[in-house]
Structures are given as structure tokens and as C-alpha cells.
């Protein structure tokens, strides 16, 4: 299978503390790849490195064969790589509709059109995206006033607006009730299937992880200690020692 996203010996330290150490992972086309690890293992940092939010100390990141090390986030997005955040990341004092619309305006390169009325741009497509994530009824509400789960859905819609081929989701179900989690995962699965997206995600809910991933990588103290199919991960002695040993009844 074709590799769409790859890090090669990525390393990042903060004032002496090594957050990511020599991590090389990859993501194949259409694959659902979960990254797990205890708190502070470096999962979010790794996402920040891939998406250009933080700069690498050494190593490289490539996307669809192109080296994107040191590329600014807004350029990486344009290449076809979108992400969501662990903490809610929407535009609270804009309507739900506008949240999505702005992303579409950016995708079409119209962010700097000073004299084109923004109101009428990308209306249909915005509506479609909201329909897709099930937020049509809330389109005119203020995003900041939505329920938590719906804000997560909105964030997904924003991420999808840039027509990505690869989606990075940082804890997509964090803070959700079990019922909401089921809904959210169903939605993510449907969308990635329908659009043929490759998915790289972190998740704390082991049920979700083992339920949908094609592959699981385990980070521990910034190092990659395992990468392989879900049924192998449980047998790996290193993983058992540092991670699953402390976990409770996965899957």
C-alpha cells in the first residue's frame, strides 16, 4: 500500500526534556492508524510536529512523498492534511454555519478577498458539510453555545472542509459520554470510508482504538515502542509492561 504520511526519526525537546525521540511512523492510504500511550507520552506533540505547529529539532516529515518539514501549518493544510484538536477548537462567537464557511473560503484561497462579500460564498457546500456531521438544525446557532459533543462534530466538519486526504484527530471522543462516543465513532468511520481518508488518531478509549484501527502504535516517554496490528499489540511484552499493565480490561 502507498504511504501517504511519514515521519523519519522525528525528535523534539523542550528545555532539555525530550518529548519526542527518534520517532518514525507512517500512514498508508485509507488506513486507520491509532497512536496510544500514557499521558505525557508525546502524542499531541507528535501531532503538532507533523502539522507544522511545532518545529522539529531533527528528523523529517513527508506527506505524499513531499518533504513538509518546517512548512507552515496553513500550507500543510492546503496540501491535504487536516487535523482536529484535543481541546475544543472552534470559533465560539461565530455561527455554526460561518465556522464551516470560513474553512471553505480558506480552502478556495479567498481569505484575502477584501472586496468580495463573504456572506454568499460556499453556502451550499457549507450546508452539505453540516448535513454530513448532523448539524443542519444548529446552523444559525452560535458555535460557542453548542453542547460539547456537537462542538466536536462541528470541529470535524471544519477539518473536513479543506478536502483532506489525511485526517489527524487528537482524542476525538475526549470528554464524551459513552453514548456520544459511539455516535462520534460511527460518524468518523462513515466519513473516512465514504471519502477514502487515511486517519491518524490518538484516543484514550481502548474500546474505540481496538474497534476501528487497522494499526496501533504505542508511544512511551517520547519513544515509539511498538507499531503493528491490534491483535499483536496486546502480546507485546514491552507494551504490556509500560501500558496495558496499568490499563483495565481493554476490549
Amino acid at each position: 500500500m502507498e504511504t501517504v504520511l511519514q515521519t523519519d526519526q522525528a525528535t523534539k525537546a523542550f528545555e532539555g526534556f525530550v518529548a519526542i525521540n527518534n520517532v518514525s511512523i507512517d500512514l498508508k492510504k485509507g488506513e486507520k492508524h491509532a497512536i496510544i500511550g500514557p499521558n505525557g507520552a508525546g502524542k499531541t506533540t507528535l501531532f503538532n510536529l507533523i502539522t507544522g505547529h511545532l518545529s522539529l529539532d531533527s528528523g523529517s516529515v513527508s506527506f505524499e512523498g513531499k518533504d513538509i518539514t518546517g512548512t507552515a501549518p496553513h500550507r500543510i493544510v492546503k496540501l491535504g492534511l487536516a487535523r482536529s484538536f484535543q481541546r475544543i477548537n472552534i470559533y465560539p462567537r461565530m455561527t455554526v454555519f460561518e465556522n464551516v464557511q470560513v474553512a471553505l473560503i480558506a480552502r478556495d484561497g479567498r481569505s484575502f478577498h477584501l472586496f468580495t462579500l463573504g456572506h454568499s460564498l460556499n453556502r451550499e457546500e457549507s450546508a452539505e458539510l453540516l448535513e454530513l456531521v448532523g448539524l443542519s438544525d444548529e446552523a444559525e446557532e452560535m458555535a460557542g453555545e453548542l453542547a460539547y459533543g456537537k462542538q466536536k462534530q462541528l470541529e470535524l466538519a471544519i477539518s473536513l472542509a479543506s478536502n483532506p486526504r489525511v485526517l489527524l484527530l487528537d482524542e476525538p471522543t475526549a470528554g464524551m459520554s459513552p453514548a456520544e462516543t459511539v455516535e462520534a465513532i460511527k460518524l468518523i468511520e462513515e466519513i473516512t470510508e465514504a471519502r477514502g481518508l487515511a486517519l491518524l488518531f490518538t484516543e484514550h478509549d481502548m474500546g474505540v482504538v481496538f474497534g476501528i484501527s487497522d494499526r496501533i502504535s504505542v508511544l512511551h516517554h517520547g519513544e515509539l515502542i511498538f507499531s503493528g496490528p491490534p491483535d499483536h499489540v496486546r502480546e507485546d511484552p514491552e507494551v504490556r509492561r509500560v501500558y496495558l499493565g496499568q490499563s483495565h480490561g481493554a476490549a
Partner: protein
Amino acid sequence: MLAIGVEAMSMLSNPTFLFYQFMNSISLGMNLFIIATGLTLILGVLRVINFAHGAFFMFGAYVCWSTVTFLGGAVGSFWLGVVAAAVVLGAMAFVIERGLLRYLYGREHLTQLLFTFAIVLIVGDVAKMIWGTDQYNVPYPHGLGGAVDFGFAKYPSYPLLLCVIGLVVAVGMWLALSKTRWGRIIRAATQDREMLAALGMNVPLVYTGVFVIGSALAGIGGALAAPRVAVSPGMDATIIIECFIIVIIGGLGSLWGSFLGALALGFVTMFGTVIFPDWELVLAYILMLGLLLWRPWGLFGHEEEEPH
């Protein structure tokens, strides 16, 4: 003006003149440091740009004058005036912080900034209501109206004393910040405010304490400046900008940063006046901008984490 610039340049080769200029720079720097250190403390911990700091400075000078006058200029009355300025300004700050500012912490920076702007307007006028528009003269404290003889030159004793006080404040603050529990809390707060709450600290108390101490320092700075300048409305017009320059150069919340920043401003002002008499005012801003472009967070400042 060119010929006059040359005249000044030739004076720079005169060792006595150089000595004077050197001392002028340090004493100006130290006086500014005492005021600016309070501002940087508040800025570092509360993240509030306190525009009222200059007005507090002026208020401190007035309080000092009143004390000296009330005591009939007795020996030691000036020093009591300095203490009174610290106490009055501390009390004022307590009321302002607990009564008003407190309710604005959750809001945007702009709100807090404009809040302190409002305080400037109010405090300035309150001073005018209390003391009128007269100018007042605070005599040099007893025994400090003369000069110290260094053999090759004499230098006025009071500015020399300001240098010493500046150093004492710097070292005292440094000890307080690094050796006491409270100090360590405040220092931690300048770097990571969320950590405070996580450590179970009484955050509101820390904020009040810092605002009170910072404002008291402005009052002390005003009282200490009083013998050298006429105490009158408008004496606060430019001090706040000078303090900003210092804080920006040093980095928010950095004690030694503002110490160095104050010295740098002292030297640039004093030597700039001599070497570039036409552009001396511009030099201070160029110094600050140059530094900001090189180190946006100041000499000792810390890079801010992304706000998300």
C-alpha cells in the same frame, strides 16, 4: 547645531565630565528602576498593563510632601514620607484590586488595559482635588542636600543615595523572590499562571499581594523622586512611558531585566542628550524597538506558549 555637537563630543574626552555623565546615567536608571520594578511585577503575574502606575508615582510624591509638611520638615520626616507613600499607595491598590480589578481578570486584555486607563484619569483628578494645582517643594532630606567629594570631582549626595537604594531594592526583591515561599510562588506565577491554581495556591491572594506591592513601589518611587523635582500635576506625564520602555527591554516580570533595562535607558538618555541632542528622545524608542526585534520577549522574558 552641528558645531555644538562637536563641542559636546570634545567634552566626552574630559574624564570629570564622563564621570558626571556616568553617575547621572546610573542615578537616573536606579530611580526609574524602583518605579518600573513594581510595574513589571504586576505585568508578570497579573498580565495587566497598569497605565495607572505613573499616576501612583505622582500620588506617592504628594503623600511624601504632605507628610514632610505635616511634620514641619523635622529630621527624618522625609523617610517617614517615603513609608507613608508606600502605605497609602498599597492601601489604594488593595481597594482598587479587591473592589474592581478582580472582576475583570477573566476578561480580555483590552478590558483590563482600559480599566487602568480609567484609573489614571480618576487618580489624577483625585490628586488635584486633594492638593490643588499648586507646585510643592520637598527639600532634600537632612544631610543629603550637598555633594560627596571624590577628590577629582564632587557629585550630589542625594542621587548617589538613589543609586544605593536602587541596588538595595534590587537585591532585596531578588532575595524575597528567590528565598521566600511567597517569592517563589510569585516567580512561578510569572511563568505559568495555571500552575498556581494547580498547586492549590490561593491565586486571588497572590494577585492582590502583587498588585499592592507593585503599587507601593510606585509610591516609593514617587516619594524618592520628590526632592529632585517640583511636586505638581503633570509630573506623571512621561514616567509611565519610561517604565514601559524598561519593562519591555527587560522582559515582563523579570527583576534583573528591568534592572538592566533601567540602566540602559539611563545611559541612552544621558549620553544621547550629549551626543545626539536633536534626537535624544527618539533614541530610547529605537533602543527598545531594536531589542524587541532581536528578542521579542525582552532580555529576560520567556516566550509565551500558544494560547490554546
